[in-house]
Every structure is written in structure tokens, then in C-alpha cells.
């Protein structure tokens, strides 16, 4: 089994305004009806990958990160750490199901690991 990139995530200092921007310009659909009020984005294209928008803390810059789906989040956190990644958020069980963790790769670029619930 491969580990596909399943989702992109825009971490934004002004998520509401940015959501309006992308939905207006590209016609993307947003659905935040979930426990974390996570703005899930459906591009509606039927190909490519969908994503989401999440709030950035005020001291951070906005950025985009990728989520890689794995079958065992803690195992891949351990594997990535052994190769130089740093754990930013250890594995968490999400309220709507699934699991995720956030890491910095050896160059300091943040990425996520996820597993469907």
C-alpha cells in the first residue's frame, strides 16, 4: 500500500476571508459542519485533491501543508522522526474520527500525517 497525499491545508491568519476568496474565485464548496469547525474544501472537479482551511496563530505566517495518509500514524511518526523529522503535534484522535499528527521535515517544512476513521 502506498501513502498518498490526501489533502492540502491552507493555514491562514484570516481563514474566513481566505475561504471567501477561494470559494468566490474558483467556485469551491466549503463545509465546516464538523466538530472542529474545520473548513473542508471540495473543489468539485472530481480529480486532483481536496483540502481545508485552518486558522494560524497570530504570530505565524500563512502557509500550505500537505497531509499524507498512512495506515498507522504513530508508526510513521516514529519512522519519520528516525529520519530527522520533528514532531510538532503528536498523534491525536479527531472528534469526527480519524487520526492525525503534524511534523516538521528535516528542512523545517511542516506536513501532516492522517488516517481515516
Amino acid at each position, binding site marked *: 500500500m502506498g501513502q498518498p497525499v490526501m489533502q492540502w491545508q491552507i493555514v491562514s491568519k484570516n*481563514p*474566513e476571508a481566505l475561504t471567501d476568496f477561494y470559494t468566490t474565485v474558483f467556485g469551491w464548496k466549503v463545509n465546516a459542519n464538523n*466538530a*472542529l*469547525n474545520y473548513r473542508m474544501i471540495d473543489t468539485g472537479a472530481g480529480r486532483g485533491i481536496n483540502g481545508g482551511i*485552518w*486558522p*494560524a*496563530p*497570530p*504570530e505565524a505566517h500563512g502557509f500550505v501543508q500537505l497531509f499524507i495518509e498512512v495506515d498507522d500514524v504513530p508508526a510513521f511518526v516514529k519512522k519519520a522522526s528516525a529520519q*530527522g*523529522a*520533528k514532531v*510538532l*503535534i*503528536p498523534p*491525536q*484522535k*479527531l*472528534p*469526527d*474520527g480519524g487520526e492525525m499528527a503534524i511534523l*516538521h521535515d*528535516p*528542512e*523545517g517544512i511542516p506536513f501532516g500525517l492522517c488516517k481515516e*476513521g
Partner: protein
Amino acid sequence: MAMALAEGAEFRLFLQAEIASRCSGNPEYSLRAFAKSLDIDHSTLSQLVRGKRRMTVETIDRLCARLGVDEARTAAFKSEALMNTREIPAAAYDAIVQLAQDAAHLLSEWTGFGILELLRLREFRPDSRWIANVLGVTADEVNVALQRLLRVGLLEMTDRARWRDRSREAEAAGAGQPLATIVQLLEQVRRLTSVAARCTRESGPTPDTT
């Protein structure tokens, strides 16, 4: 590439002060005489005092014994040297800064405390919108605080229906209420950021990521 920090700075300053003290009492006194009294090569001592040679804990042990430094102070010198000789991988630098920022924001913003307090309620719901309604803030503000709590390890989403307040574990271990736990955390990161700041000064404003 890891960034090496200045080593043994505190004991080095102690040695400098000791030499200055001896010289002030005896104008003929020299570094060479000081080295002889310590049973150490004078060029080696010179390099140690100027920070050109690594100050190992073994060296500190030996010189402290010769100087009659008590055990507690010797241990403090060695602890400082160990802290200073620790290398900070460039990739860890951002994580240290992030941790310091999170701890500082958790202290200055009350949303994080509010979430931890709500976790103690039987009615608690692991739902950002429910938390936002109770605390009177936006769901985005809740989510920013949630990220901070997760990053500093004060909160853990253990399953889809339950979040674990890890500040209570620290409380049980004697750290006190969430505020005290975060203050303790901040004290820990203060030391780390102090090292990181020295690391920055020595390496320039941008961490070496090569």
C-alpha cells in the same frame, strides 16, 4: 549541520575572576603561575580561559578540586557546561521557538485556560463550536488555542469522544493548577530559548539549515 554553542562559559568566567583576584593581590602573579598551581599546562589553561578550548566536565571536576570549590558549586558549573555543550540541530530550532511562543501565548490569552477548565465539566463536548459558544469566543480562536495546547502537550485527543487534560497529570505531580503548570513550562522553555538565542547570535539571524 548542528550548531555548536560556546562551552563552559560560567566556569570560564570563574577562572578569569580567580586569576584577576590573585593578580590584584600580587602584581608578579601570572597565568603561568596559576596554571602551575592547578597542575595544568599554561597554554591549555590560556585556551580554556579565552574560550578557545572546550571546557569538559572532567576538566571542571579537576580544576574545582584544585581550587577547593565545594561540591554544589562544582555541580552547578558542570551542569552549565553540559547545557552549553549540547548541540541544537538546526531542525530543532524552530520547534524550540514555537514552544516558547506557545507557552507565552497560553499565559497571556485565557482561551487555553478556558478549554482546560471546561474539560473538567461532565458536560464537556469535544467540539470547537460548543467550546466557542461557552467561552464566548470564535471557533477559530478555540482552534488556535487547541493547537497550542496540543503542541505543548497539555492536551491530548485520546479518542473521538474524549480529550485528556494533561495539565492535571502535572498537577498531580505537584505542579499545581493549569496556570502553575504553564508557568513551569515557560520556565523550562526560557532556558531552551536562552540557548537558542545564543545559538542565533553565534550563527547569524538565520539558523543554518544545511
